[in-house]
């Protein structure tokens, strides 16, 4: 390598929808990676590129409208700026929506961070008849302003050159003083004096910033203050409270309202000084408004939405079928290869049944997830997703959810046959923490594609006269249970006011292909990395549970003896012999399964599970179903001595169940209800753990299982109680 390069750290900040991601992608290309801030789920991206012999490290901060303590995104952005102290902050500002965007700029100026403004979308602004004088804005704000068009790359070279100049300039950045009117300015001065005298939090924040945050009643800074110096914190808090009470009593306003009003006053005064000129009437309908007229129309809107959601669903689940099939074949081929290469025995069984199937299980979802994220990226980048939230909010709010919850529900199986794994990951589009958690915890109740074979098996066996109606009925039940559970969570463990729906409907935009691809790939890769690491260990563990302890030599000898008898009796008739040999093999497999740890566990659970009508065979299948719901049918097959049962050809098993005296319609309903609602499968649980926390993942395993068991027991016992009376 060459001589060590000078490194410059830059942070990219700005409003959501201001073109931040587009600029980031343009500057860093593929040289970026996604990380998570420890403990929270806000993504941040880092990328690097070279410029004039300097290596530039660029961090993409979450998009925010403000720097309050009310959302994780804002805390992350704020903390990054004060703790990491990037050499320059590139504040991207939407020229077509200048006034609102400058509100955040204003707060960066008050924080006193070295900054440069990227005045983006000057082309869009021009189309709307808005002309922004960058030079005038620069002169009035005292920070460099560079007009750019992030989509085309226009102006980005100049932007970086000037950002480098700011980083290398030794100028001391003074926080901007905005007057908050006579009611507050005096108090701000008094608080500043106290803060300055005691050096209270001054190593992190400018004293004026701290004073303002105390007046805004900022929880994070107040908590930090108490840790640093209890006495000073108490004095500053008391003074701030005094003013706050006074203002509320005399004028009926909150200090934060006065502060916000004055910030906007400051912005308006700047804009009026020749920064912005309108060349034609702004009342004309923008293209976006025209689209919205149709797309959010009272009648057409919901119809279009249904069509779009159905399209996304088709796209995700039908188009991904082929690549899913390829992966299936690949893993089948791999299993075959290992089958041929390794000697018969435990090690081979572990590699094939534990490792290959476990990893195959995770990777099998990859095409599905890629297609889903690609589809969502189109809806998100185009601006349509915000309209879906807008239209659905009224309904989802009833259940304590948010308009944006609709997408995860649909993907998880709102239309039967989805998958909770991409569903859980899709909750990322929700920006309100409690609504997001409630969505995340309830989407596994939907009927995913893996539950469908079980539904088909049991409905086919016991309700064959009207399959479609029962299938539809169970889909409706899953919606009801999911939404009512969300309501229950939001009134108990996730209690709290609804997150405000003050949301932007961004103008419609044509998504760019590189943007979509980067979006899709980074999210898919995160899934592979996160789910892949844990699942291998657990699937081997489940394999071991269903394999050990093995049958004793005596037990094996019994089956061997039967086979020997068979040989001597039917050496001529090979047809009958092979059939009987298979039934002996199947009986041995059943015996081995019953003898295994899972079998012992299944039998041990019988005293409890029989309240819901489940015997040890069902229990084992349910334990297996935790690894993946697909396993339920095949495990039931083994437990009923049917040998290997393919999910798609389960008719013989259905007949077997019909004939079994233990099974009837009520047992079938109880089993269906339990399977629909008990613990999410392993991959989903891991995704919940990554997206929320292990605490919530464990909660969803326990809660769902207990809840499903109560429902199943009710279904099983109700007719008994009624017929007894």
């Amino acid at each position, binding site marked *: 390598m060459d001589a060590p390069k000078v490194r410059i750290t830059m942070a990219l900040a700005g409003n959501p929808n201001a073109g931040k991601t587009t600029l980031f992608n343009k500057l860093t290309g593929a040289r970026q990676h996604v990380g998570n801030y420890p403990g929270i789920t806000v993504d941040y991206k880092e990328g690097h590129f070279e410029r004039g012999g300097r290596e530039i490290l660029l961090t993409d901060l979450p998009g925010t409208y403000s720097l*309050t303590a009310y959302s994780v995104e804002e805390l992350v952005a704020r903390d990054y700026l004060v703790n990491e102290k990037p050499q320059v902050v590139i504040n991207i500002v939407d020229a077509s929506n200048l006034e609102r965007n400058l509100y955040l700029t204003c707060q960066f100026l008050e924080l006193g961070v070295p900054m440069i403004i990227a005045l983006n979308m000057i082309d869009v602004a021009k189309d709307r008849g808005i002309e922004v004088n960058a030079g005038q804005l620069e002169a009035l704000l005292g920070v460099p302003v560079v007009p750019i068009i992030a989509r085309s790359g226009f102006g980005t070279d100049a932007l970086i050159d000037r950002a480098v100049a700011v980083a290398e300039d030794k100028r001391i950045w003074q926080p901007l003083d905005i007057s908050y009117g006579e009611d507050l300015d005096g108090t701000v001065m008094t608080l500043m004096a106290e803060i300055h005298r005691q050096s209270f939090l001054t190593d992190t924040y400018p004293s004026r910033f701290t004073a303002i945050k105390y007046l805004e009643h900022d929880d994070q800074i107040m908590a930090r203050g108490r840790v640093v110096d209890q006495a000073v914190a108490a004095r500053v808090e008391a003074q701030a409270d005094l003013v706050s009470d006074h203002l509320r009593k005399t004028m009926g306003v909150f200090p934060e309202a006065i502060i916000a009003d004055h910030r906007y006053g400051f912005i308006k005064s700047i804009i009026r000084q020749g920064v912005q000129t309108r060349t034609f009437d702004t009342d004309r309908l923008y293209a*976006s408004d025209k689209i*919205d007229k149709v797309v959010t129309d009272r009648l057409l809107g*919901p119809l279009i939405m249904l069509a779009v959601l159905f399209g996304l669903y088709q796209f995700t689940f039908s188009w991904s079928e082929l690549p899913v099939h390829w992966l299936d074949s690949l893993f089948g081929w791999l299993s075959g290869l290992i089958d041929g290469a390794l000697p018969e025995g435990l090690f081979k069984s572990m590699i094939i049944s534990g490792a290959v199937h476990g990893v195959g299980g995770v990777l099998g979802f990859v095409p599905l997830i890629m297609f889903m994220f690609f589809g969502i990226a189109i809806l998100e980048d185009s601006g349509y997703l915000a309209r879906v939230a807008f239209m659905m*909010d009224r*309904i989802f709010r009833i259940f304590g959810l948010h308009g944006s919850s609709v997408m995860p529900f649909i993907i998880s199986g709102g239309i039967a046959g989805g998958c909770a794994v991409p569903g859980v990951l899709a909750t990322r589009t929700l920006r309100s923490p409690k609504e997001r958690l409630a969505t995340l915890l309830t989407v596994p109740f939907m009927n995913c594609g893996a539950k469908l074979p079980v539904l088909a098996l049991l409905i086919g066996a016991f309700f064959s006269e009207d399959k479609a109606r029962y299938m539809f009925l169970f889909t409706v039940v899953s919606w009801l249970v999911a939404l009512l559970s969300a309501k229950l969570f939001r009134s108990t463990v996730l209690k709290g006011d609804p997150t*405000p729906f003050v949301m932007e409907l961004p103008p419609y935009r044509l998504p760019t292909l590189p943007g979509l691809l980067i979006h899709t790939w980074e999210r898919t890769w995160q899934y592979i990395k996160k789910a892949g690491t844990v699942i291998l260990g657990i699937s081997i563990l489940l394999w071991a549970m269903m394999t050990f302890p093995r049958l004793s030599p005596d037990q094996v000898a019994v089956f061997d003896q039967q086979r020997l008898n068979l040989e001597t009796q039917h050496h001529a008739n090979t047809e009958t012999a092979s059939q009987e040999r298979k039934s002996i093999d199947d009986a041995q497999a059943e015996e081995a399964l019953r003898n295994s740890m899972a079998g012992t566990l299944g039998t041990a659970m019988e005293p409890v599970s029989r309240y819901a009508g489940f015997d040890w065979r069902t229990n084992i299948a349910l334990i297996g179903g935790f690894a993946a719901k697909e396993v339920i049918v095949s495990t039931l097959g083994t437990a009923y001595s049917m040998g290997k049962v393919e999910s798609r050809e389960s008719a013989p098993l259905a007949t077997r169940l019909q004939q079994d005296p233990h099974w009837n319609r009520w047992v079938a309903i109880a089993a269906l209800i339990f399977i629909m609602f008990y613990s999410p499968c392993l991959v989903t649980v891991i995704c919940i753990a990554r997206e929320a926390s292990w605490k919530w993942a464990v909660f969803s395993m326990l809660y769902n299982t207990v809840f499903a068991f109560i429902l199943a027991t009710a279904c099983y016992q109700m007719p008994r109680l009624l017929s007894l009376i």
Partner: protein
Amino acid sequence: MAEISLRRMKVRQSGIITSVKVGGMLGQRIREMGLVPGTEVTVQGRAPLYDPVALRVMGGTLTLRNNEADHIMVEIAEETDTSPEA
């Protein structure tokens, strides 16, 4: 001129915000999106179930639930029910 709550505004009606009477998170969210006294708002439309409402504010479009719009008072011109189409 008359002062009404933003919830009661009709589609395509415009007005100037006179006050925002709410604090805390909701108050901050409302204000940081530019809904401060002196700002002109126009009702762009309503969701199919009449709630939330879409507003044109400073060249952007915002959404707001009806119960959130209750906190915002708006000054409108008295005679507003003229022609439905502009």
